[in-house]
């Protein structure tokens, strides 16, 4: 029994790691969403973190924890001058500006010869382990759980629901929005640093627009109103392809398209019928049962 369990663990080890990394990335989009801001710069921040971390261990021979610190710190520092002008924009304008930022980062890396341009960096030492990734997720969730229901948590919710009204209550919304952008950047950068040392390689095209779309989808499908929603979403949508690969031959659809089809349908159904995400499903079912 124990042996079977450990076999199972070995088989799905990498999946577990990806769940954790994806959870951190989803959380990086979530923290801005928690105060109503659709900021989609996370792919760019993750790229900065991945490259900073990889260069730190490979070129500067820094110890891994220090490299990870750098992975989180660099994007966080970049987020400040980015956020000050960009956070004045509202709704989709903010989304577009941050997408533009992400693309500029990606294209900058493509054009940077020192890091092999579009080929990216390979043979990065594998230093990130499952427990480190899990620890990062756990610490993040703990901090977010302590923010919820606190003075700051209420301020974030107030900004999300009605920013001008929140401001008349003395809540400096710009500072909160900037803080969440910086936190999101640090989380994305950390995830990037972990990913680089988990998959041994980074390339700019792994951090394009579709990557940040994935992060947003994790957050929304899991539920963007509660801090554990994005983790549930990342877990669900990272495991789903593994399941679908088994199912694909049975339904006679190629695994690639099937995965996209199911992802698209899940996202559509969630946004239409479960706007608070999968984590709200139990409550909705209970309400449904109590209603008639």
């Amino acid at each position, binding site marked *: 029994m124990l042996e079977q369990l450990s076999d199972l663990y070995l088989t799905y080890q990498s999946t577990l790691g990806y769940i954790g990394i994806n959870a951190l990335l989803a959380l990086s989009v979530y923290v801005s969403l928690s105060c109503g801001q659709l900021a989609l710069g996370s792919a760019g921040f993750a790229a900065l973190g991945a490259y900073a971390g990889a260069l730190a261990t490979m070129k500067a021979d820094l110890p891994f924890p220090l490299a990870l610190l750098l992975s989180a710190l660099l994007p966080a520092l970049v987020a400040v001058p980015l956020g000050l002008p960009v956070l004045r924009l509202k709704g989709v304008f903010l989304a577009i500006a941050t997408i533009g930022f992400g693309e500029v980062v990606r294209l900058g890396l493509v054009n940077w010869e020192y890091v092999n341009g579009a080929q990216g960096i390979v043979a990065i030492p594998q230093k990130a382990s499952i427990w480190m990734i899990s620890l990062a997720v756990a610490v993040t969730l703990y901090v977010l759980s302590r923010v919820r229901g606190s003075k700051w948590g*209420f*301020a974030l*919710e107030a900004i999300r*629901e009605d920013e001008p009204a*929140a401001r*008349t*209550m003395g809540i400096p919304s710009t500072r909160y929005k900037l803080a969440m952008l910086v936190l999101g950047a640090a989380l994305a950068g950390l995830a990037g640093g972990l990913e680089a040392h988990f998959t041994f390689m980074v390339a700019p095209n792994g951090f394009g627009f579709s990557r940040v779309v994935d992060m947003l989808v994790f957050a929304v499908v899991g539920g963007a109103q509660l801090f554990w929603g994005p983790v549930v979403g990342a877990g669900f949508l990272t495991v789903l392809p593994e399941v679908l690969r088994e199912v694909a031959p049975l339904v006679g659809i190629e695994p690639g398209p099937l995965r996209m089809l199911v992802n698209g349908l899940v996202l559509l159904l969630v946004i239409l019928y479960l706007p608070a995400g999968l984590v709200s499903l139990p409550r909705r079912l209970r309400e449904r049962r109590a209603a008639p």
Partner: protein
Amino acid sequence: MSALLSLRGVERSFGGLRAVDGASFEVEAGTVHGLIGPNGAGKTTLINLVSGLLAPTGGSIHLSGRAIGGLAPPRIAALGVARTFQNIRLFPELTARDNVLVGQHLRRHPSLLARLLLLRSARDEAQAARERAAALLARVGLPGRVDEQARHLSYGEQRRVEIARALASQPSLLLLDEPTAGMNPVEVQGVAALIRQVAAEGHSVLLVEHNVRLVMDVCDRITVLNFGKVIAEGTPAAVAADPAVITAYLGSER
């Protein structure tokens, strides 16, 4: 006695339209000051100017001698101004208590570290804040509705939660924009008593209201606005007798 709030020649135009056109008046500390006038007279615009949601295009606004015209809303709130909204703007997904907790923002000083380390002091601070919020809700007559989501409350209840939320910051100046709109007479009585009580505690109230009876009952002084200009000012009795007011406002309503 020096004025708590003083407006001098305040102007605000939208495009070519002057919603507030050179308004000047003062609100004394510890008084209830009524602001009345026909629809479109510029009352709500004026409240928005004082609370910072709009910047004046001319004139000056002083709070306790300090210029606040054009400051950002959080700055003005920190100087002691709180408000309610004509079109209720509670946070609909939050409970009544949590709405009031948001209103306490300026009065709470918890430590993030203490909260992360699960320290006793953090728990006590949060508990005290929750109790203060519940007490405020009881004070506006909603002791049983503390944990109800704001969107599930009745119209009159929502207005009262808004007042409690505004009081939570212990403002020196409370701006009430039609606090009794949509309320039944019993609820209106309750709000009238509450306003008097709040003023007795030393807060000043600037009250925009369509309910003439209420204004006459609770206000110490009244300013009448029409087309963005002050057309009359004085005690309720003096204003009620002013021929300009009768033609512009009371006359048109009755």
